[in-house]
């Protein structure tokens, strides 16, 4: 018995180490790259020994890219701000719309509710470009192209179905009798929703919000097509590092480090909710 568990421990430790190495090494390598110049990055064979430099971060923050032949203006910091603004507002709007909708789908069985819920989910089935091309034309006609409002609207395609389906599972897990007990004790529908249903579904809502934030933050294609330079998030803005005079790997790496920092921090802080939220809520059939 003892020997089996020792072997098991070793095997498990090895397996976990392999998985961590597999997933974390690229991030670790990018982290190292972000402190190097193009010359040290591109040397053959690669080496982990180098003289660290902060020039990559400095040029990103100051907004000037020192190329080998010319100096280039970049808007990395404003891109970062755009990402933050677009993600936070999209998720806020998504939660305001999605949570009550999820509650309705979970608790009030009405005619066609399943169909509507499925239609909302199906927005995620279509390739984004399929939606984007006609949408670009519409948006140009009604003046929503290249506006924050338009982008936030389109971001709902990503955020809303996610929030809706995760939170719905959570609301379904709340026994209706708990809400009935509150309502029969002299409270109305709204009070029951805010005082009983929302707190009980809290972890699920937090998980859905976090996940939606990460998806919105990582989105590339919507902003690429619909936003011009001053509205672009980091994902699109990073294209600027591919310049006529070459690819600035060092800046790209520094840009990546800066742009994954918020989601990385969020995920680390909230991983408990994420695991709980996803395993309890969405899996339920």
């Amino acid at each position, binding site marked *: 018995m003892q020997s089996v568990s020792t072997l098991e421990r070793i095997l498990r430790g090895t397996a976990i180490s392999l998985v961590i190495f597999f997933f974390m090494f690229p991030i670790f390598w990018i982290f190292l790259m972000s402190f190097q110049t193009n010359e040290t990055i591109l040397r053959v064979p690669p080496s982990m020994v180098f003289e660290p430099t902060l020039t990559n971060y400095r040029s990103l923050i100051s907004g000037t890219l020192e190329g080998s032949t010319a100096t280039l203006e970049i808007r990395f910091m404003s891109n970062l701000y755009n990402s933050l603004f677009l993600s936070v507002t999209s998720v806020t709007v998504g939660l305001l719309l999605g949570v009550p909708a999820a509650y309705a789908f979970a608790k009030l069985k009405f005619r066609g509710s399943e169909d509507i819920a499925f239609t909302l989910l199906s927005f995620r089935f279509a390739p984004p470009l399929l939606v984007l091309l006609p949408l670009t034309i519409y948006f140009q006609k009604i003046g929503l192209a290249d506006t924050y409002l338009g982008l936030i609207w389109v971001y709902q395609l990503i955020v809303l179905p996610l929030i809706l389906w995760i939170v719905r599972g959570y609301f379904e897990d709340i026994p209706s009798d708990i809400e009935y007990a509150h*309502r029969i004790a002299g*409270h109305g529908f709204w009070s029951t929703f805010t005082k*009983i249903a929302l707190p009980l579904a809290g972890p699920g809502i937090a998980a859905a919000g976090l996940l939606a934030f990460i998806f919105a933050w990582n989105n590339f294609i919507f902003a690429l097509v619909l936003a011009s330079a001053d509205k672009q998030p980091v994902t699109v803005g990073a294209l600027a590092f591919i310049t006529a005079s070459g690819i600035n790997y060092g800046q790209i790496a520094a840009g990546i480090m800066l742009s994954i920092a918020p989601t990385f921090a969020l995920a680390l802080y909230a991983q408990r909710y994420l695991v709980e939220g996803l395993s309890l809520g969405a899996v339920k059939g």
Partner: protein
Amino acid sequence: MSEIMLQISNVDKFYGPIDTGVHAVKDVSIDVERGDIIALLGSSGCGKTSTLRMIAGFEEVSRGTISIAGREVHMLPPVKRNVAMAFEGYSLYPTVTVRDNIAFALKSSGKPASEVAAKVDEIAEMLEITGILDKYPSSISGGQQQRASLARALIRDADLYLLDEPMGQLEPQLRTLLRGRIKYYIKERGLTAILVTHDQTEANALADKIAVMEDGEMQQFASPEEIKEAPANLFTGTFVGEPPMNIFDAKAASSDDTFAFSLQDGSELSFPRSAFASALQDRVMAMDRVALGVRPYAVQRSETGAAARVLANQWLGDQSHIAAEFAGGTLVLVEHDRADLSEGDEITVHLDASDLHIFEPDTGAAISHGAKLVG
């Protein structure tokens, strides 16, 4: 004249479309007087919980009306019906302590804190949950949760108290103790309560009147004694009573001075004609077959009488249940002392005419109880 607190009139419940959906409650009518405790008794799926939830307002009434204290409520949301309810699944608020769960409704109705605290303490003491008041629902046992849920309902000021299987999770001793206390609490305050249960002991002990339900229909609405002595039909007769009533297929035959029932195996139970009213004799003679019922407690072993052969003899600690082969079926009888019988023993049993229940075999409707014609 006493006041009607709850009036259920011709209520139907369909799950799904009316007339084509599942017909869970069929044309049920019940009048409950103020201060009465009523039990809805039946097996799972008989419609008793659906009925309770329609009174509470969690299920729509498909047809018919429900009035509480003279006010039609079946179209009102639960919050406007002024009823309190203890749920079968307890349904405590998981985020607050047991104390706050119980006090919840009183607090939000704006009662002074000292009065609320006193009431919580009183009711917690009655239900033996004083020690767990400051715990959270997830850390207490099912039985404790159930009592907390019961306390949360009973503490309120409501027109009507709905109790859905309120004691199902309790240990037998505690159940007996609390039954008495709860009944006293309800009666002392003149409250009106509807109890849903599948436990006939609970219904008998708590209720002034019992509504026996089966397959969505109300079979009988009467006092526990009446249901025991004069069951309205075969279902009530066999459902209420432990062990259940013995039923035999029989055909009546009369001669000059005896009135007899011939049973399936050809044997005969004969009684003096004078034991049965003549109207009953005429009625039964006109029927092709009858279902003859007799309660296990009414069957006596005797020197002479009908022959039976023992199949099993069980001593339950305070009574013997003896099952015997009789007239092609099984007859169960109960004796209060240990019986010295074993499988295969021949016994003779005596049935008294006054203990017989006669039913229509097809519709199940009662024809007579104790040799007296129904109606």
